C-alpha cells in the first residue's frame, strides 16, 4: 500500500478511474478446459489480469517422503511470467510467489476430498500471463475451475476477490493504480454456500467498520464470481439431454472374453 491519499482515485460522484462504482467488479471472463496436456485447466480474465491454471493428478507423489499415507497433498504453484508486469521479472519463484503458493495450496486442501487419494499429489499450476492487481484472487478462482475440470472430488467451487480502501472509501476489486496508491488491500477466498473463509490477507489500515463493510462487499462479489465459475464449467460440458440407456455396467472381462 502506498498510502498516498493525495492521489485522487475516486471522483465526487463516487466513480473510480476505470469508470467503476465502488462496489463494482471489473469485467470477468472464465473458460474451462483450455489446455490439452493437463488433466484440468482454466483461463480467467479479471479486468486486465490474465491467468491460466492447470491441474495434474492425483498422481504419484514425488519426492516420496512428502507422501501422506492417509490423504493426497495439494500443491499449488503460483508464478508470474517474466513479461506479465511492467518491469521484466526474472523467471522462477521469489519470496512473494512462494508465500502465495502456500496460501492457495492450504485453501484448496480444505475443499478437495484429499482422503480419497492417499499417498498422491494433486498439482495445481497457476501462471499469471498479465498482471494488474488481484492476481492471487484471479489465480485461485482459476485453480478452483481447473480442479473441477480435472474431475477432482471437492466440496464446492471457491471464488476469490480483493476489497480495499482508496481515498478513505471501501472499494471492491482493486485495479493496479488503486492497489499501488490505496490505503488497504484485503484479498479473500470463500465457499459461498457456507460462508467459510479459506484465504484472507490484509495490509494497510482498516477500521472495524471498514472491515465489516469490505467483507460485505467481498462476500457479495464472491457470489457473482461463483456463478461465473459454474457457468464456465457448464459451457465446457454442455450436454444435450441425452438419455442414458446407452451405457453398460457390464464387467469388461465378460466383453473381453468373447473376443
Amino acid at each position, binding site marked *: 500500500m502506498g498510502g498516498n491519499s493525495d492521489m485522487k482515485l475516486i471522483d465526487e460522484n463516487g466513480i473510480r478511474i476505470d469508470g467503476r462504482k465502488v462496489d463494482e467488479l471489473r469485467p470477468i471472463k472464465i473458460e474451462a478446459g483450455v*489446455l*490439452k*496436456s*493437463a488433466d484440468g485447466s482454466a483461463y480467467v480474465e479479471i479486468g*486486465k489480469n*490474465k491467468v*491460466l491454471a*492447470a491441474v*495434474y493428478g492425483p*498422481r*504419484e507423489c*514425488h519426492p516420496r517422503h512428502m507422501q501422506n499415507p492417509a490423504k493426497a497433498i495439494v500443491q499449488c*504453484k503460483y*508464478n508470474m*511470467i*517474466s*513479461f*506479465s*508486469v*511492467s*518491469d*521484466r521479472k526474472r*523467471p*522462477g*519463484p521469489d519470496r512473494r510467489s512462494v508465500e502465495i503458493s502456500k496460501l492457495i495450496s492450504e485453501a484448496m486442501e480444505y475443499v478437495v476430498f484429499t482422503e480419497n487419494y492417499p499417498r498422491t499429489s494433486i*498439482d495445481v*499450476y497457476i*501462471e499469471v*500471463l*498479465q*498482471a494488474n492487481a488481484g492476481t492471487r484472487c484471479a489465480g485461485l478462482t482459476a485453480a478452483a475451475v481447473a480442479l473441477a475440470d480435472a474431475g477432482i472430488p471437492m466440496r464446492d467451487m471457491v471464488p476469490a476477490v480483493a476489497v480495499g480502501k482508496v481515498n478513505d472509501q471501501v472499494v471492491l476489486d482493486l485495479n493496479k493504480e488503486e492497489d499501488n496508491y490505496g490505503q488497504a488491500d484485503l484479498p479473500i477466498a470463500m465457499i459461498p454456500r457456507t460462508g467459510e473463509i479459506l484465504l484472507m490477507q490484509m495490509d494497510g489500515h482498516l477500521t472495524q467498520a471498514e472491515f465489516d463493510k469490505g467483507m460485505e462487499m467481498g462476500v457479495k462479489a464472491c457470489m457473482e464470481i461463483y456463478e461465473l465459475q459454474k457457468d464456465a464449467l457448464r459451457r465446457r460440458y454442455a450436454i444435450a439431454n441425452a438419455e442414458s440407456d446407452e451405457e453398460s455396467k457390464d464387467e469388461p472381462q465378460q466383453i473381453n472374453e468373447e473376443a
Partner: protein
Amino acid sequence: MARSIVSEIKRDHIHKLIADGHRVDGRAWDELRQIQIQTNVVETAEGSSRVKIGNTEVIVGVKMTVGEPFADTPDRGVLSTNAELIPMASPSFESGPPDENSIELARVVDRGIRESHMIDLEKLCIEPGKKVWINFVDIYVLDFDGNLFDACSLGAVAAIKSAIVPAKANGLGEDYPMPITCVPVSITAVQIENSILVDPSLDEEKVAAARLTVTTDNNGDLRAMQKGLSGALTLDQVRTMIETSRRLGAEVRKIIG
C-alpha cells in the same frame, strides 16, 4: 516418469504405420499441423504472441530495457532468449531452473533470430558503447504435444515482429516499431526407421531416432541448424530436410504475414 516410457506396442504401431507410409494422425510426411498465431496478447510486454502448432502451445513476450552493450559489440542492441518448460505444459516437465532441454531450445531459437539478423541490432544502439536497447525474449511452453523448436521459434518471431520500442517511456523520443530485416522460419523433422516426418507430434518424437531443425531466411538460405537425439542422419536425409524446410518455411512465412 511412467508416462515417459513408451509402450512397445505403441512404438511398433508407429513404426508399422510409417513403413506403410502413414502417420498416427493421418498427415502426409511433409504436412504441418494447423498453425494459429495471435499477437499482442500481453499488454505489459513490448511485443507478445500466443502460438499453437496442433496441440502444442507457447506464449512469448519481448521486454525491452535500456542498458549497456557488450564490449565487443558497442554499437549494437542486445538479444537474450530464454525458454521455460513450465510444469503446466506437460506431466513430464518439472519446476526448477532451466535444464539442458530448455537451454538447447532457447539457444536454437536465439540462433535463428540472431544469425538471420532478423532484429536490426545496429538500429537499437542509442549511444555507442554506453546505451543500447536490451531485448529479452521469454518463451513459456503452455501445452506440450511435440515440436517445441518450431513452436517456440514461430512464437518468438511473431512476438518480435509485433514489438514496439518503448522509446517514449524511456525519454528517447517517439515509440517506433521493432526494426526488422527478415523473417526466419524454422522447420523441424525427425527420422524414424529411415522415414522423414516433418513437425513431429509428441508420440512421434518419443520414438524418433534423430531430429534436425533447419532455419531459413526470406531468400531460402540457411541461417541455423541443429541436429538432435542419439540417432544418425544420412546426407540425403539432411538434403531432403533442408529442401522441405525451405519449401514449408515460405508457406509459414506467409502465415506470419
